[in-house]
């Protein structure tokens, strides 16, 4: 029997039931009796929990007030008045009130630089990145710490709130990434001494809890330093956090390096590219985009771990919130819950933003390597 096709079949649309709102519902929520049951159960749970939550957070909440009286009502919800009154403390800690504008400038320029860097359409991103990495930290340091250009010195022991959270987190991230890359390369190096040192560094820092690192940095380190030599507690914590997270970052980056096929190294070598050029131009750009989820995961973890600086007497956002619970003027049943909710909201917003941004970057970078 022989057959020869006269015409090719054209492509057709999928069956209707898979399209539109009803199609989506049928496919995702009610595709089987079991699924339908789960959907109904989930709706029931939402119905049980959502209204009371909204009542507490919005409808019964107290928004205005000068003190605890406003929040003492029988069935009052969240005491947002507390957050409003203490907002300055949550953001700046005990930073001298008349000097808070300096923090504002650092925040605003930082946010501006970040926005410019994150958008793909900004011209000259390379120069902005260089500025953000090398010049901005100096400006930020001079502004925050003072002692130069007639600026009054504000001791780091006065710093607190979101300021400390951001300083610790951003420094940790900015130092951890390059250091982590170098450590990952060191661990894969063909030079035994370098490899050995990298392994020791990574395993040492990864094997110790961050709390221990912080205690070591703030309590034990001064014992080893000669008397009279002492440096800032915040600085010690910054160094501890940066070194700690670079060990994690190193392992994340190493995972990416291992996923690059041998052929890429060989093609680079065959073209005459040496070790550094091959890594900077060929290997790292690919390896780093493979591990974006892992890197962001580490960043998010680091951001939340900054709350641990409380144990050595630094007051980050959460610490500043907690300290204010003891203010008798605001002693009300819902004060603590509201404070925690506020801190959680800030942390969640920052972490969620990082997560969404990483997804966007992944999508954009995948355009090139995707087939079609």
């Amino acid at each position, binding site marked *: 029997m022989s057959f020869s096709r006269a015409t090719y079949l054209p492509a057709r649309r999928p069956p209707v039931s898979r399209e539109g709102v009803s199609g989506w519902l049928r496919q995702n929520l009610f595709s089987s009796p079991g699924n339908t049951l789960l959907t109904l159960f989930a709706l029931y749970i939402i119905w049980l929990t959502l209204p009371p939550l909204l009542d507490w957070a919005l409808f019964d909440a107290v928004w205005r007030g000068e003190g605890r009286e406003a929040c003492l009502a029988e069935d009052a919800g969240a005491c947002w008045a507390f957050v409003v009154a203490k907002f300055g403390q949550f953001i700046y800690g005990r930073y001298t009130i008349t000097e808070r504008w300096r923090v504002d400038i650092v925040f605003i320029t930082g946010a501006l630089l970040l926005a410019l860097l994150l958008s793909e359409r900004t011209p000259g991103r390379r120069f902005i990145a260089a500025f953000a990495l090398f010049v901005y930290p100096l400006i930020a340091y001079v502004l925050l710490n003072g002692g130069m250009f007639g600026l009054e010195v504000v001791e780091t022991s006065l710093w607190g709130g979101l300021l400390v959270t951001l300083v610790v987190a951003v420094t940790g991230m900015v130092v951890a990434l390059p250091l982590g890359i170098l450590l990952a390369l060191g661990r894969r190096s063909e030079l035994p001494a370098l490899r050995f040192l990298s392994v020791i560094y990574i395993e040492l820092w990864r094997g110790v809890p961050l709390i221990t690192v912080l205690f070591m940095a703030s309590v034990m380190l001064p014992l080893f330093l000669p008397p009279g030599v002492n440096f800032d507690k915040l600085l010690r914590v910054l160094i501890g956090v940066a070194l700690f997270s670079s060990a994690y970052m190193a392992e994340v980056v190493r995972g990416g390096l291992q996923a690059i*096929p041998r*052929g*890429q190294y*060989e*093609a*680079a*070598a*065959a*073209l*005459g*590219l*040496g070790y550094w*050029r091959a890594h900077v*131009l*060929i290997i790292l*750009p*690919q390896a780093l*985009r493979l591990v974006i989820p892992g890197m962001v995961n580490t960043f998010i973890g680091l951001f939340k771990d900054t709350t641990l600086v409380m144990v050595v007497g630094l007051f980050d956002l959460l610490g500043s919130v907690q300290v204010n619970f003891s203010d008798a003027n605001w002693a009300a049943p819902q004060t603590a819950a509201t404070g925690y909710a506020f801190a959680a909201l800030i942390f969640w917003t920052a972490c969620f933003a990082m997560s969404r941004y990483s997804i966007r970057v992944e999508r954009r*970078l995948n*355009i*090139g*390597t*995707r*087939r*079609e």
Partner: protein
Amino acid sequence: MSEKDSADTVIEISGLNKWFGDFHVLREIDLIVRRSERIVICGPSGSGKSTLIRCINRLEEHQSGRIIVNGVELNNDLKHIDQVRAEVGMVFQSFNLFPHLTILENCTLAPIWVRRLPRAEARELAMGFLERVHIGAQAHKFPGQLSGGQQQRVAIARALCMNPRIMLFDEPTSSLDPEMIKEVLDVMIDLAQEGMTMICVTHEMGFARTVANRIMFMDEGQIVEENAPEEFFNNPQHPRTREFLSQILSH
């Protein structure tokens, strides 16, 4: 093979031995390649043919014997290795294009960073070679958007952008669909006709017959037979060669 003018010699391999662990993968290889020669190496898998050409640009290290490429001996001197690699182009079985760079960037990368060519000049050079392998229109696409045959032609153009004196081909058509093998072979034949010195590891016997000056048959890490193509196919001397040829030509 008579000794010709040694100034014409571009690759000189003598007494080459290499081991992978305990496995003696290359045994006492002697090979002299003169300018504009086209050599095809064939043999069963595991015979060491890929390893041999990978030794020529030091992707594999040899344990004994000498390899001299363009008058530079390959040893532990990194400068020598760089010198040799800049003059030897290589095309791989799995293309090994850089997936994060466009076709054009794949081609300009080494001229810019190794040869220190100005960007505009490198771009012009690359476009010239891309046109030559009939892929100029795709210059701004990424490797993942091209077919296997197109990718392999880009890989050839990328190697040519370094203006190499020698081209090594490591089974360039083995991972291609049948419909794409021809477009790659056509480019290679073109290159051969221009007088490029080429060493090809391939099982494309039609290509070997039309292009090669010499065909070498390898088995168990050694050169078993070496001859001009007509003699090699019509009158193979060694029983192992006859067996191999009957296997691959029987279909």
